């Protein structure tokens, strides 16, 4: 049955076709959900939206704080090692602020959101799927995309960029503190260099990334959940693959967005 010669090809084929399947499902889910976007403006959907914004925004603040402060501190520490060799510690502000706004802010925030909120989406919807609740919605002619995915997607698209800006600011503060204590860069100098180096483009490309990552996290989480089957094990699988898929997409897309915006100067 399992021919050793063809088995790897077959499993590769399976992998590719299931990836194509998942991608197709996720994209069509995104399309369907966007179709329902106008329905958000009424009392009950708005309440669901605020609830989700609370879940993915407010509840993620503490961990975002810690992670971003340390990320900024690491950027400063690491940049300082090279800069102090050539006596250019004055450039610390720019390095940290630009690095946070453009790359590390969106990146770290997205990883946090994927691990905490995206996985929760997959688990929640997955549990609903395996306990026939999604089927029940379908039989009642209620679109899961509208009732479940839309508030999650929108909440993520709003809170993702907000959290990212917040993380970038906090990271820069963390970098400033490290610069002061480790390399003796005054806060004044740090700030003026940061403001001088930081371009509007850095901020908006950071926000753009955050926005795209938010869509990825929400849609991957929801689609994995909605595709779950086979009881608790299925939910576990869906959750795991939601996190793994989001991480991969965040890293790969992050690279290409920077590439497009800064190498090709879009």
């Amino acid at each position, binding site marked *: 049955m399992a021919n050793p010669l063809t088995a790897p090809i077959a499993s590769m084929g399976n992998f590719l076709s299931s990836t194509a399947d998942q991608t197709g499902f996720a994209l069509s889910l995104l399309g369907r959900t966007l179709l329902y976007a106008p329905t958000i403006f009424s009392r*009950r959907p708005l309440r669901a939206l605020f609830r989700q914004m609370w879940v993915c925004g407010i509840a993620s603040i503490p961990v975002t704080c810690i992670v971003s402060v340390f990320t900024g501190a690491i950027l400063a520490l690491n940049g300082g090692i090279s800069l102090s060799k050539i006596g250019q510690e004055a450039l610390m502000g720019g390095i940290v602020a630009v690095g946070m706004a453009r790359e590390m802010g969106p990146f770290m925030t997205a990883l946090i959101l994927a691990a905490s909120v995206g996985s929760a989406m997959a688990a*929640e919807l997955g*549990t*609903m799927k395996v*306990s*026939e*609740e999604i*089927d*029940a*919605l*379908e*039989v*009642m*002619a*209620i679109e899961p995309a509208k*009732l479940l995915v839309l508030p999650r997607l929108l909440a993520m698209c709003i809170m993702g960029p907000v959290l990212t800006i917040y993380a970038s600011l906090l990271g820069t503060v963390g970098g400033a503190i490290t610069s002061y204590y480790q390399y003796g860069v005054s806060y004044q100098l740090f700030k003026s260099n940061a403001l001088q180096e930081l371009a509007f483009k850095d901020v908006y490309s950071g926000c753009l990334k955050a926005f795209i990552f938010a869509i990825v996290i929400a849609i991957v989480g929801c689609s994995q959940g909605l595709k779950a089957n086979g009881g608790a094990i299925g939910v576990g699988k869906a959750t795991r693959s939601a996190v793994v898929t989001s991480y991969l997409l965040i890293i790969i897309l992050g690279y290409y967005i920077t590439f497009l915006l800064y190498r090709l100067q879009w």
Partner: protein
Amino acid sequence: MVSTETNPSPPPADNAPKFDIELEDVYKTLGQLKVLQGVSFQVRHGETFVMMGLSGTGKSVTLRHIVGLMQPDQGCVKVFGEDLSQLDEKTLKQIRLKIGYLFQSGALINWMTIRENIALPLYEHRPQLKEKEVQERVMEKLRLVNMTQAAEKYPSEISGGMKKRAALARSIILDPEIILYDEPTSGLDPIMGATIDDLVNDTRDALGVSQIVVTHDIGSAYRIADRIGLLFEGEIIALGTPDDIRNHSDPIVKQFVNGESEGPITEILEEKKRAAQNGAPKA
């Protein structure tokens, strides 16, 4: 409705479906298991059809076909005369709106209270209703199933039988024309079970609703059924009025109806088990 008078008859109902639900020779394999192997039956308008059968024969699977949650591998399922496999999404939704489906597991949305669960279809499909009217309708259905006291509870906070009843209230909230009940009385005490039987009878009598009831309770089946179908080994092997079934000559039906542990059914199942064991090493 047999009339010998020759007065101008109402417009001919040739194209109108005679049956609300029709299954024609439905086959379905799930994984390796041939679950349905040529299931055919019809449910007339306004009729209560009771489906019985051993645990795991495919009663729930059959119901899932009728709401389009599963598609037959072969054969066809018609609801209100429409072949479900031929419908676009919008028409299918329209049909589903006229069907109430009580899931065997209840399938209440776990993060909503009972009240919110039952109101959900109203919010979605009756947007013109005022909040007060929605709540009135919800309470009315909750009263029918004796559940008003648990309206503010979450599904995880109530018992299995209570979940069943809440789910039943939800499945009839839009006043559907077809109701499918998957074991409405399992997990209920006898008195509550009888109340649900009355509810099933009342809905049929008052609203002329067509209903399929899956149940393991033969007494309840006799009380509510216009006709009973017995699903065995992927086919409807007996079909008839409660009296037909009660007095059926087929030994399989007899064993089932009388609930005996020894008989042809047991032999068939034993035989299958043996065949599976002998066949296993070859595969």
